[in-house]
């Protein structure tokens, strides 16, 4: 018999993995690098956090370490995305055709 906590843990795991999957799908489907980063970071961050919460329900004695991994993920994920986005923009990776505005290119004096 499964306890309620185990069941909750399993469900959280599936929810987290679903977001990871959506993140992967976003990486494949999105039209340019910036949109891919958007889909990639957000979904994988939430997915990882939900997964960690799920594991914490399944194995409460791992809670502290899982919390630490969660904090590291929460801080490092957005930073690496920002650095990647900046690198992509500085190397002038093409943006998708329906991009409406690029204030950064205007301000740095690049040709759009």
């Amino acid at each position, binding site marked *: 018999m499964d306890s309620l906590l185990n069941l909750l843990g399993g469900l959280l795991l599936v929810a987290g993995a679903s977001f990871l999957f959506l993140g992967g799908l*976003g990486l494949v489907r999105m039209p340019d690098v910036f949109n891919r*980063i958007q889909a990639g970071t957000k979904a994988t961050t939430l997915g990882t956090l939900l997964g960690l919460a799920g594991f914490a329900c399944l194995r409460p004695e791992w809670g*502290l370490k899982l919390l630490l991994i969660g904090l590291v993920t929460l801080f490092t*994920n*957005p930073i690496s995305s*920002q650095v990647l*986005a900046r690198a992509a923009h500085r190397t002038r990776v093409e943006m998708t055709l329906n991009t409406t505005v690029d204030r950064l290119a205007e301000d740095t004096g690049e040709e759009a």
Partner: protein
Amino acid sequence: MTKARDLTTLFATLFLFWLLLNGSLAPDVLAIGLVVALLIAILFRGSLAVLSEFRATPLAIVTAVGYLIYFLKALLQSNLQLARIVLSPSLPLTPGIVKVRTRLQSRMGRMLLANSITLTPGTLTVELNGEWLYIHWVTVESADIEAATASIVSGFERYIEVMYG
């Protein structure tokens, strides 16, 4: 005076990290943690100054909790929004990079803001330049600086201002 307070904040942060890493309150673990955290805090207080910018007042701590809740809600929303976009066959996007301005002065505050923006609905910080942030937006609602600032930055700024200034 503020130097001693900075040192204490930095020390407390490091020690807390140590405790989480070890997950134990055994006397020897505590002793090593105290010594190492103190050493690092003293030796690297200059280069780790960003970690001690937290104001550590009761109000700031209450605000931090509020901020966390607000942030997690935004993270969930942003994922549902992206899921909708990624799963719809036509990929409804109107992307662009807009410019916004922040009132925050501290480095840590600005970093926290940039990180929060990256994880919330449809926005991604591309470049930080002083008080200006360049944000990639999946669905650009307005390219106007004031309007974009109001809709992207203000929600977080309210909280971070109290915590870091």
